């Protein structure tokens, strides 16, 4: 026994695909969904693309044929092209960049840009993928609850955590974060001098 075709609803059309073609179709949309993750118009774009696939396949079906073959689907998908999100790097480039950002986002660092004091909370928020406001509220509560003990913890974190490299074209670091950064760098230089 062998399954011959799968019937698929593509937006407003119904299309039959050979088994191999169906798997290829699933892979195309799985990749598309992944690239559109977080895009507010994800569903709309996917619906549009489903319709595009249905239309392109219908155009390629020889008269009297009802089932789209793998070759026909591949040709249709080639014409439609991969899902490209505006403003994003092309697919091949993005893979390598994803790898590099994954490495840096998992490092525990302090982030000076947009910091209130030195960027410890921002660094923790980035590391644990939490909302920075939430962490700041917790930090303030701990400051009050520990009767100032939190100040020492924060100072220790300031001294110990490396600074994240600044994003090119990012906001300049001003006011207190800039001062605290200078202060930490000054202290580190002193400690280094003492140690050696």
């Amino acid at each position, binding site marked *: 026994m062998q399954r011959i075709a799968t019937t698929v609803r593509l*937006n*407003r*059309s119904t299309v039959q695909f050979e088994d191999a073609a169906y798997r290829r179709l699933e892979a195309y949309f799985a990749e*598309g969904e992944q690239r559109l993750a977080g*895009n507010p*118009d994800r569903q*709309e774009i996917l619906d*549009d693309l489903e319709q595009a696939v249905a239309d392109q396949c*219908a155009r390629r079906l020889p008269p009297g044929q009802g089932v789209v073959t793998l070759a026909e689907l591949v040709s249709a998908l080639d014409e439609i092209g991969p*899902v490209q999100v505006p403003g994003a790097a092309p697919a091949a480039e993005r893979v390598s960049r994803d790898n590099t950002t994954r490495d840096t986002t998992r490092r525990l660092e302090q982030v000076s840009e947009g910091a209130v004091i030195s960027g410890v909370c921002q660094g923790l928020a980035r590391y644990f993928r939490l909302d920075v406001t939430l962490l700041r509220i917790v930090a303030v509560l701990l400051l009050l609850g520990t009767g100032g003990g939190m100040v020492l913890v924060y100072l220790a974190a300031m001294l110990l955590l490396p600074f994240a490299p600044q994003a090119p074209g990012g906001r300049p670091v001003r006011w207190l974060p800039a001062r605290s950064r200078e202060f930490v760098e000054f202290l580190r230089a002193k400690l280094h001098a003492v140690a050696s």
Partner: protein
Amino acid sequence: MIVESKLAPIRKGLLEFLVLKIVGCRSAYVPDILRRLSGTEFSTQEGTLYPLLSKLRREELVAYQWQESDAGPPRKYYSLTEAGRAQLAALDEYWSRINRTIADIGH
């Protein structure tokens, strides 16, 4: 080939401008837009155009209307909104300025 790849990011960035221009001329559905761009330096594909149009719609620069078609399901016809028209005029203006700068430099 080298020249083409050097200006690839610029071509990519200009696609939005060109789509606004095409849609601004008269309302168009995606195959119309693709046909207009095919054979030019800006030839593109549905996989690129649909996400771009959705972005432009979210920015309220374009809007679409469903229109029945003789063959197949209804089609989305895109046109410029007021904001889209203003943006297109501004982009046109800026693009002319860039062209003048490029033409003037080195003379």
